[in-house]
């Protein structure tokens, strides 16, 4: 699966798509493949502040639980309501399945994240 060029990536295998100061956050195809069948996504409440590099939720597959790490800092505006009943969407369409929408405190900070080519290189390392 190609990594879309309309967004940025982290070494923790999250993607973030910016639209001005609003951003959507999800996990990459590589991440979902490593996790296996996703059965539960635990996300923060709307209004919560999340901090770059820190855990903002967790994702559970049949075999394991993993933390979700915030690529950038901001305030949660929305959580994807479809994930409550259909967590498997993360496996089926990882790059279309956003988990949270965030109002970024510093949109310029995106410059330090990986672009799709850099991220892809990382997954082959």
């Amino acid at each position, binding site marked *: 699966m190609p990594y879309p060029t309309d967004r940025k990536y982290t070494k923790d295998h999250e993607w973030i798509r910016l639209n001005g100061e609003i951003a959507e956050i999800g996990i990459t195809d590589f991440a979902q493949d490593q996790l*296996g*069948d996703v*059965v*539960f996504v*635990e996300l923060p409440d709307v209004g919560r502040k999340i901090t770059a590099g820190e855990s903002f939720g*967790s994702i*559970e*597959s*049949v*075999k*394991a*639980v993993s933390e979700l790490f915030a690529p950038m800092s901001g305030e949660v505006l929305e959580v994807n309501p479809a994930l409550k009943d259909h967590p498997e969407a993360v496996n089926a369409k990882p790059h279309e399945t956003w988990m949270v929408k965030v109002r970024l405190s510093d949109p310029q900070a995106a410059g330090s994240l990986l672009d799709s080519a850099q991220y892809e290189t990382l997954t082959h390392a």
Partner: protein
Amino acid sequence: MVPYAGWEMPVEYSGISNEHLAVRTRAGVFDVSHMGEIEIAGKGALEAVQRISSNDASTLKVGQAQYAGLLTHDGTFIDDLLVYRMGPSHFMLVVNAANTAKDVAWISEQVKVAGDAAVVDSSSRYALIAIQGPAAREVLQPLTGVELSDIRYYWFSYGEVASARVTISRTGYTGEDGYEIFVPPNMADRVWQALIESGRHADVIPCGLGARDTLRLEAAMRLYGNDIDESTTVLEAGLGWTIGWKKVDFIGRDRLLEQKERGLARTLVGFEMLERGIARQGYAVVSDGQHLGHVTSGTQTPFLKKAIGMAYVPMALSAPGSSIDIDVRGRATKAQVVPLPFYKRVE
């Protein structure tokens, strides 16, 4: 692939849920060649097995198998195993891969005391291929002259599968009907390929360690290292049925008898999560901030579609219906004790 007890093992082929459901509804094929085999033979073989195994091997006919514990003097588990009676004075123990060396050392030491028998680690002589699920028989039958319907549950027979000399055992670790096929390693691939080919029309698929774990947990089969180990007794683990009380003696008997008379302080129970969250091995069982026990196995099961697990809890909380809380990464999450097994196949 993951390293596992010195083997490279596949966790999943097509996804744990997919593989799990295949076994519950059709059949799946597992390569479980990592399992260890230890043979005990000689004039004193029965006495030796009786001494080291919790169960009563004298009740086994030739061609029959039983589940048992290999116990410490405290009645706790060095390992759990299947005891196969190959002949009147010849037994084969099928043990956990990670424990094989430890088991062989322990058994050899104990057999010296028991008398005239040889103990041989024959793990390298056997690969082990399992086919499990409601379609197991119809997939395996065309590959063998052995009449599979003649093999009763927990019995075994000899014959050929895909022209390889094998032992076919009607056993498994999934809660489904099925067979485990002991085959010389150089013929293992042939048997594997034949099963996959024969099962193609029924959509039978290869299954890995991941599905093996979720399947056995639904069936409440204990996993060594999770649910049982050298700190848990047979009685605490709810496996009292594997104790041959009528035997004259066996290692661990005195302590188990003592525990039986005194009563247990804790026991292994099954639970279902009532709130969203999945309990995992090592999570604490809590109540009002008090630590009461720990989760030994837990997952979200693909077939029952519930978050389930097993945990050691004080006796006061062990009755089905009891409310417990599981500390899921800092959050007390409600769960309820339920009867085991979680899943039982319809005969």
